[in-house]
């Protein structure tokens, strides 16, 4: 072993951390014949002894009690927060479910009210026609001599039905096949509005008074008018009713 090789081992020898016994022995033998390397090893050992003396002196130095207390408080707070977040998550799921149901019911009620309001709003302007149709009821798609408005409306309805998004029509037809329901065409509730321009539409099943049939030009029996009829209402993204069809 020469001095260059010894220098690579000097620290490990001084620390007694050299695992290879052969290397250690060679290094120690080298120090017996080389004063410089012996001094080098002694210097390293002296330095380590000084550093370890400082380490021993510092062994008792620890963070003050306030740091201990602060960290313990942080641990407790975190544990409590984690526990409460678990509870909140569990409650949140239940809460979300109940609020979802609540929202659905509330939306249904709002839609019903909206549809009724729209229908009642248009009642005043169309009252004479309704009276005529009530006297001489005209079947759907079977315009009679007194039923010019319904014919025109049917044409509008046909056009609007063409314009309805396919998603709604497919949904309606599947539903009608599945449940063997008889459905009318969709009647627009807002004049001059192109439904295809709307981003998203929803169909909602509601129950309306029988008189609502007359509002769109369909025949109805005034005696059974208070009875409710099923209807599918098309809602825009803003929640307003855009079209309606009746279901039997």
């Amino acid at each position, binding site marked *: 072993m*020469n*001095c260059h090789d010894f220098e690579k081992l000097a*620290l490990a020898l001084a620390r007694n*951390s050299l695992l290879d016994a052969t290397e250690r022995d060679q290094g120690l033998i*080298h120090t017996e*014949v*080389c*004063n*410089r*390397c012996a*001094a*080098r090893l*002694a*210097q*390293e050992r*002296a*330095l*380590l002894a*000084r*550093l*370890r*003396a*400082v*380490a021993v*002196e*510092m*062994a*008792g*130095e*620890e*963070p*003050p009690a306030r*740091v*201990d207390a*602060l*960290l*313990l408080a*942080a*641990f*407790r707070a*975190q*544990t409590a927060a*984690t*526990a409460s977040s678990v509870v909140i998550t569990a409650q949140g799921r239940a809460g979300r479910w109940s609020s979802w149901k609540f929202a659905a019911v509330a939306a249904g009620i709002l839609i019903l009210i909206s549809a009724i309001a729209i229908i009642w709003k248009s009642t005043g302007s169309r009252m004479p026609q309704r009276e005529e149709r009530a006297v001489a009821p005209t079947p759907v798609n079977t315009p009679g001599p007194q039923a010019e408005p319904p014919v025109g409306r049917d044409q509008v309805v046909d056009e609007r039905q063409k314009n309805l998004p396919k998603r709604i029509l497919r949904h309606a037809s599947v539903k009608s096949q599945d449940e063997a329901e008889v459905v009318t065409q969709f009647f627009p509730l807002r004049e001059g509005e192109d439904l295809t321009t709307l981003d998203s539409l929803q169909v909602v099943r509601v129950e309306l008074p029988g008189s609502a049939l007359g509002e769109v030009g369909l025949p109805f029996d005034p005696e059974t008018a208070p009875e409710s009829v099923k209807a599918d209402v098309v809602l825009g993204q803003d929640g307003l009713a855009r079209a309606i069809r009746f279901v039997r």
Partner: protein
Amino acid sequence: MTKPMVPSDAELLRSMLAGDERAFTSLYGRYKGLVYRFALLMSGQGSIAEEVTQEVFLALLRNGRRYDPGRASLKAYLCGAARNQVLLLMKKERPYVQLVEESDEGREAPVAQLISGDDPLGDCARNEANRLVRQAVLALPARYREVIVLCDFQELSYAEAALALDCPVGTVNSRLHRGHALLSKKLRAAGLDSAPDAQVMRCFA
């Protein structure tokens, strides 16, 4: 009589993260001194050491799940975290570093330091020597100081120090060599090291 089983660091950490306060206090008690002393030796300031200790353990509480026992010992992991915190804080504090070397007079002395042995003069000399050593360590560039603190004061292996410093083992070795050489020079300048200067001696081996 069988010794009671001492839980491993990984077990304590798992329990701590599951909310076991006893595991937290055990783990904290095991390593708070290591982290605090590392920060103290690196910065020379008790306030920074306190803050580092606080931040390191708060980070362990928050991100303890990120620790991979297969990659490094918890000791090395905490030392690495402490090192990052120290460097960060010292960078922040740099504009306010005192021009005069910090005196220990203003600090509260630990009880152990107040108790004198049979040789008061010797105790005084040792304390002074230790103070000079600490000052010399503090005067080293950070890259040498950190390897000396980790390997010589905290007695981490080169491999553990390499993990804590996120560098190869060879780098730790070479920095330690260089750091020792610089430290020896400073101590000699302070009149502390009585070992002969190896540079002036000739080797014919």
